[in-house]
């Protein structure tokens, strides 16, 4: 029945489209489609006769968006996803989903609103979708998989979270004193009630920004995630209000531009009417504050940018909208879940993080989720990672003629309070990236030659009077890539990425109220490498075909599980329309 309705809806959309094209764009279609075919081969022990060593799979999908503009101030968008798994015939393995639906408009030429699906963010400490580990500076050849995954989860480049609810914004202009007051408000539902023990949970907030002039602005952010009383039989209600103040100061001095941005705020996280097993009411209140300030300086003559930032985020600072992780913690991967004749669980690696959509969260959840210390032990919850203080430095240079772009970042952080002991962990992070467009350097050469180089080193270290307190965990990531235009629109892609993590660290085991109740001794001696190469043919800037091959290897002597690896051959066709 659902399929029939969907087919009828599609026919209606197509016929309406034909009609609409004749009537000044009141209705038009857009969308994207892709076809993906993967052939994976597991490389484990040669004696492994139990595990299936090869898997071929893929899909074809079309996201078809109906765009409706019934009047000048209203816009409606509805996207239907039709997906067919590789090998599905005559409707078998085919799914139809409503991927997106929203309406937005303008009231009285002054108040904008959006109802339905929306992408929203506020600040990195209140509501922000932090990038997953190893996403920044992804090589061209590996970026394709991340882009597909991000597209599917609505992880857009501006760190918004996809929500469903209502948002509005408007501004007031003044003739004197201040220029403008901007208002942004939103509300969304995080999870619905089951009419039993789960209450409706909503997330709402907004900000007010006062623009005094181009030089000065200040604002207030407020968010709150709360259970709605009376929507279930549960009489205890979780709440997490966060309030922060922001400011921004701008100044110019000869060739220098300066900007000071800052934010300070506090949070509470508690459960109202929460009774323990002895019927004692315990709200499990956790509260704390944060302070953040960043000074940006730009020397225009050399296109040189420098920034220094200070942050101090208390160990009890909780902000679900900013501390939610994209990447789920799991000990089991989707592909080749078990290997060897003993059928041991295959440990997760960076290949899975780059490729496996099942590892990602699409919705905000409460609590500080577990993370992967081997990939990011310094700020797994982004800038809002609790119990961190210290400085972040950044220096970058963009060549005027786009020949190269170089950046270097250094972070020097410590814990605010120790984890289980007064001795503090020290965190040091160095990241360096260089992108070189060789074709812009060579005279009279117009085919793209782009090289990417990157290096990062994360160190967590603690020293104490007793030997067992001394811990050190180091993670190094080195990557290099090449994009070479062979002939017109035909590119050769090459990439290599290696990650090594070794050492030990204690990580906190938290209870449901995010309180540290125990410790895990995390140990690793991890080594991972991916090498990839492929060809891409760009039919035009919305339409390309890629054939990619990857070879991945994983080893961790601490886990006492056998080394493994993958080969993957992919054929991917992408089209936007």
């Amino acid at each position, binding site marked *: 029945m659902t399929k029939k309705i969907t087919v009828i809806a599609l026919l209606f959309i197509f016929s309406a489209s034909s009609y609409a094209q004749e009537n000044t764009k009141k209705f038009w279609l857009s969308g994207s489609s892709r076809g993906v075919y993967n052939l994976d081969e597991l490389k484990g022990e040669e004696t492994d006769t139990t595990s299936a060593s090869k898997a071929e799979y893929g899909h074809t999908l079309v996201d078809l968006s109906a765009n409706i503009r019934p009047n000048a101030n209203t816009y409606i968008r509805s996207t239907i996803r039709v997906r067919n798994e590789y090998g599905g015939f005559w409707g078998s393995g085919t799914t139809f989903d409503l991927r997106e639906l929203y309406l937005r408009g303008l009231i009285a030429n002054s108040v904008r609103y959006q109802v339905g699906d929306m992408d929203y963010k506020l600040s990195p400490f209140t509501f922000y979708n932090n990038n997953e580990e190893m996403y920044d500076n992804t090589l061209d050849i590996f970026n394709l998989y991340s882009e597909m995954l991000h597209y599917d989860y609505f992880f857009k480049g501006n760190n918004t979270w996809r929500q469903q609810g209502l948002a509005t914004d408007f501004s007031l202009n003044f003739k004197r004193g201040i220029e403008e007051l901007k208002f942004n408000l939103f509300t969304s539902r995080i999870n619905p009630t089951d009419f039993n023990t789960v209450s409706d949970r909503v997330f709402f907030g907004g900000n007010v920004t006062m623009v005094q002039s181009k030089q000065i602005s200040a604002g207030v952010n407020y968010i709150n995630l709360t259970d709605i009383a009376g929507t279930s039989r549960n009489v205890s209600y979780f709440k997490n209000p966060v309030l922060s103040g922001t400011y921004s100061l701008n100044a110019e001095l000869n060739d220098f531009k300066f900007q000071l941005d800052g934010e300070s705020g506090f949070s509470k996280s508690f459960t109202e009417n929460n009774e323990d097993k002895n019927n004692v009411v315990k709200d499990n209140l956790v509260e704390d504050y944060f302070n953040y*300030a960043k000074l940006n300086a730009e020397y225009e003559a050399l296109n040189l940018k420098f920034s220094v930032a200070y942050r*101090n985020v208390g160990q009890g600072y909780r902000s679900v909208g900013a501390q939610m992780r994209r990447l789920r913690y799991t000990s089991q991967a989707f592909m080749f879940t078990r290997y060897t004749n003993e059928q041991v669980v295959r440990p997760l690696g960076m290949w899975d993080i780059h490729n496996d959509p099942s590892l990602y969260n699409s919705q905000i959840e409460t609590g500080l989720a577990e993370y992967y210390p081997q990939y990011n032990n310094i700020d797994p919850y982004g800038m809002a990672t609790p119990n961190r203080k210290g400085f972040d430095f950044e220096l970058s240079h963009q060549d005027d003629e786009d020949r190269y772009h170089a950046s270097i970042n250094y972070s020097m952080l410590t814990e605010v*309070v*120790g984890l*289980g*002991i*007064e001795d503090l962990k020290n965190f040091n992070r160095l990241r360096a990236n260089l992108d070189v467009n060789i074709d812009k350097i060579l005279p009279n050469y117009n085919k793209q030659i782009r090289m990417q180089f990157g290096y990062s080193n994360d160190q967590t270290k603690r020293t104490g009077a007793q030997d067992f307190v001394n811990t050190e965990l180091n993670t190094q990531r080195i990557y290099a890539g090449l994009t070479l235009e062979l002939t017109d629109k035909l590119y050769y892609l090459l990439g290599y990425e290696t990650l090594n993590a070794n050492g030990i660290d204690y990580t906190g085991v938290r209870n449901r109220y995010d309180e540290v109740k*125990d*410790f895990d001794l995390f140990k690793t001696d991890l080594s991972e490498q991916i090498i990839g190469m492929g060809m891409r043919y760009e039919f035009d800037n919305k339409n390309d075909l890629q054939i990619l091959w990857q070879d991945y290897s994983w080893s961790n002597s601490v886990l006492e599980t056998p080394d493994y690896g993958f080969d993957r051959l992919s054929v991917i066709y992408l089209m936007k329309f």
Partner: protein
Amino acid sequence: MKRLLYILALGTILSSCEREKGYEGPSLIDQFGDFSVIDSLQVTNTNVAFAAGETSVFNAEFSKSVNWELTITGAVSGAQKVMSGYSRLLDEDNATWDGSTTKLPMFKSEECSVNLQVSYKEIVADSVISVTDSIISLADLAVTSTKENDGFLISDFETSPNALWDLFLQGGQMNVSSTGASPQGNSFYDMKGTCSWDWLIGLATIPGSAYGEGTNFDLSDNPDQVYFNVLLNFPQEVQNPPIVLFNFREDDNQDGEFTAGQEDVYSIEIKDLDPGWQLISVNYSDLQTLADGLPVSPVGNAVKESNKINHIEVLFLAPQGNGFSQAYMDYMIFTEDQPLNP
């Protein structure tokens, strides 16, 4: 306005400088630190007279908090007192012995051995090692007089019961015995026999008048405060499992007599006990009126009045026709505010 914002920015940085010291979560040293004994086990008052209100305190200090267990064993009685906790220190707050016992029998005046064992985790060569029940200290002490329990003692069966107890026997015996291990003192009450025509083998009716001037037992009028305690042992080798029923007769109208069918009787029926001596403690408020072992409505004023108990009946029962049965009983006592801590 500008000045205000500069002050705000400066305040942001300065306010970050001070924060409460300490650490997050439990102590890492307690979880994984090296374990060592800083002060070995010391016992104060190694010749302790519990009857005089004396106590013994056990002191020890470790390098970190551990799960510890201190066991005191009587050399003659075999009684055991077990104290346990999770701490770095053993001291008067968590390791004081008042002469009570954890595992019956009660202690006698005797020599006792003490052992202290600990369980903990520590890091050895980057691996977490669990150490379980490691004995780290041994000590000795002597009990010169045993603990005296506050309460209304009905009988400790060290001598024959009160002469005013009324015994009714149907093929059975109810005698003080000193031939086996007694949970308290040297003797206990041995109830045994065979009755082919009735469940009742023996009945002891204990009048309140046997213990004072009035007809009632001298107990608190608040049933929530009154606990009835008795030590029982059902020998495992007996084929016909015994049942012991205690009836508490109330003189509701205070005429000095209990009138059956008009005044309340509250009961507790004991059967299917674990092997060995067991402490039975029951709050008077929790008693019910029973008929053939099942709860029924009281026939009197239906108010539990512990100060109006004027008779206690001890019925020794066993399924009729199933042969010989036997049960041991000792140290029958009422306590106030809390169950007996033997």
